[in-house]
């Protein structure tokens, strides 16, 4: 019983981490049609900022609060300078964002060296439920992920900003004709997606520690999750992330980790092949 509970918690918390990372990726992919290869590096940057705050002697949570804003601002600048040249061609966008990611990743590698740097958890210790102990920080991540998900959903579905964003996605010319500044909306969307990646990086760095290839590890999982969930809506990528995250965390409990690792990807690709529109097709939020 206790084991099953711990397993369930592990699966849930890993699923939450994947959802957190995929949120930004999914929003950029769905709203802008760009598969952002630099997203993993935005996660890395968020983690790096948190580490910097810690290294400078500031409380860790200041770094965690700053990370989304700094990364979001960077995303806004990059969108204005570079990304907006790629909108017409998704493949070129992949290559261009890959180059961007390479630059960011190698810069961070130059700054931290080839080390694994640890950042302590801002909320340490564990929560005890009877005889079972679960990590307090992982629990916090689950809670924050839920809050961010609900927040994003409300932002997109209930605010005029979200409405303008979705209008820009669905019909850019009509949106422009209605007086919406589409370049600004694209910039804001990209910045928002980057900020989410920065937040994800900041939150997961105590769990995974900081190293230059941190982002890369999640990037492909993120892409697969977006494709499984379905591009074009907000809910799709989140659902996909839930499925992929749960599978990646759950399968190693029942089979050899190597097989499980590969099996998740194979299953995902086969699924997408036969259902290209993803789990949740269609428009909506």
């Amino acid at each position, binding site marked *: 019983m206790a084991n099953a509970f711990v397993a369930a918690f592990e699966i849930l918390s890993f699923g939450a981490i994947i959802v957190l990372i995929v949120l930004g990726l999914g929003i950029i992919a769905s709203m802008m049609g760009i598969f952002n290869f630099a997203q993993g590096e935005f996660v890395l940057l968020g983690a790096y900022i948190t580490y910097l705050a810690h290294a400078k002697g500031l409380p860790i949570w200041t770094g965690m609060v700053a990370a989304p804003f700094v990364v979001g601002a960077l995303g806004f600048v990059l969108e204005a300078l570079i990304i907006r040249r790629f*909108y017409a061609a998704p493949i070129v966008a992949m290559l261009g964002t890959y180059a961007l990611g390479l630059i960011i990743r190698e810069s961070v590698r130059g700054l931290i060296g080839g080390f694994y740097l640890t950042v302590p958890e801002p909320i340490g210790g564990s929560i005890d439920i009877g005889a079972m102990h679960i990590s307090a920080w992982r629990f916090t991540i689950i809670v924050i992920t839920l809050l961010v998900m609900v927040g994003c959903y409300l932002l997109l579905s209930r605010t005029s900003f979200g409405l303008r964003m979705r209008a820009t996605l669905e019909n850019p010319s009509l949106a422009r004709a209605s007086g919406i500044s589409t370049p600004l909306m694209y910039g804001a969307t990209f910045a928002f997606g980057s900020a989410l990646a920065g937040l994800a990086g900041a939150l997961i760095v105590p769990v995974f520690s900081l190293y230059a290839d941190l982002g890369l590890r999640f990037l492909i999982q993120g892409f697969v999750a977006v494709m499984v969930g379905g591009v074009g809506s907000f809910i799709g990528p989140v659902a996909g992330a839930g499925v992929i995250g749960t599978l990646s965390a759950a399968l190693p409990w029942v089979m050899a980790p190597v097989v499980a690792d590969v099996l998740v990807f194979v299953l995902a690709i086969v699924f997408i092949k036969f259902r290209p529109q993803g789990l949740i097709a269609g428009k909506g939020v």
Partner: protein
Amino acid sequence: MGAVKQAIPADIGGEADVVMTEHGPTKQSASGQQVLPIVEGVVLVAALLAPLLLQDYLTVFATRVIILALFALSFDLVWGYAGIMSFGQALFFGSAGYGVALLARDLDVTNIFLVLPAGTIIGLTFALLLGGFLLLGRHPSSVIFVSLGTLTGSYAADRLARGWYYLGGQNGIPSIAPMTLGGYEFSEGPSFYYLVLGILVVVYLLCRFLVRSQFGLALAGLRENEQRIAFFGYKAQHLKAIIFAIGGAVAGLAGSLYAFHEGFVWPNMVGVVISTQVVLYVLFGGSGTLIGAVIGAVIVEGVSFWLSDNYRDIWPIILGLLLLLVILFRPLGLISFVLGERERVGSFGAKPRETKEKRNAAP
């Protein structure tokens, strides 16, 4: 700048009207002068003379570069000529490398006439399986799906190689026996260099024949506008699967040479790192020209070798910046400095059209 916005595709999974081919080149070889054979000749002569001028350890390096150029050729066939973005080309390269390494380790097969065909067939088989799965089917696959599918395949293979004890896990398979021809062993040095160069030249000529044939014409059409080719009655998906398999075979050949030259194989060889590296070569050199792929591999590896002594840390950053600049301002690669658009597309017997090229060009 604002004009670019209008081109946002409503269906992001749809046809990529690839911008790479649509930026106008600066030079039009209006006189009809042929630049391409000159470039090819110069590269060939330089490659033939290289071992005479280079020190021994540089010859070993040059051999590696030639093998990587062969690998780049395989990616160029797939992306530059057919417009299939294969982010997982290393899957075929590396699996062939692992295949011949296992042949040498477990079965003591090192004869060149057995291992190189074996590597080629391994590459071909994997490419047929993956390409067939990704590209064929009732509904045409989106470019995004194919590129992410190949990327995922390569990543999954990397993970599998890392975790599978039979394949040596993290360390790969070390100390592979040298390739043999009768009693002769190919070890690093001029003989291996000329062997590899000979293979590259043969493969290059075959590819050159292929892309200038009627099949190549159909491929060019596919790259420029897949839908139109489909309406003409070509089986676009089959064409794609065929060229993907050919690319896989060439990658397999390169991978088996690489395994024997380096003497070991390791998980990176099937993984994302090498997969993206080959993309860099071709983008730098110029996709859509065979010689561009070769030149790109030589330049990237050469500069990287030269700089990594002094600027090891910042070289990858410079590489990223250069790549970004090439993508933004020279989408046709370095070769486009000397090669006009007309010659790059080439003539297949019909007059080349030029009106289409300016349609989407960024202001």
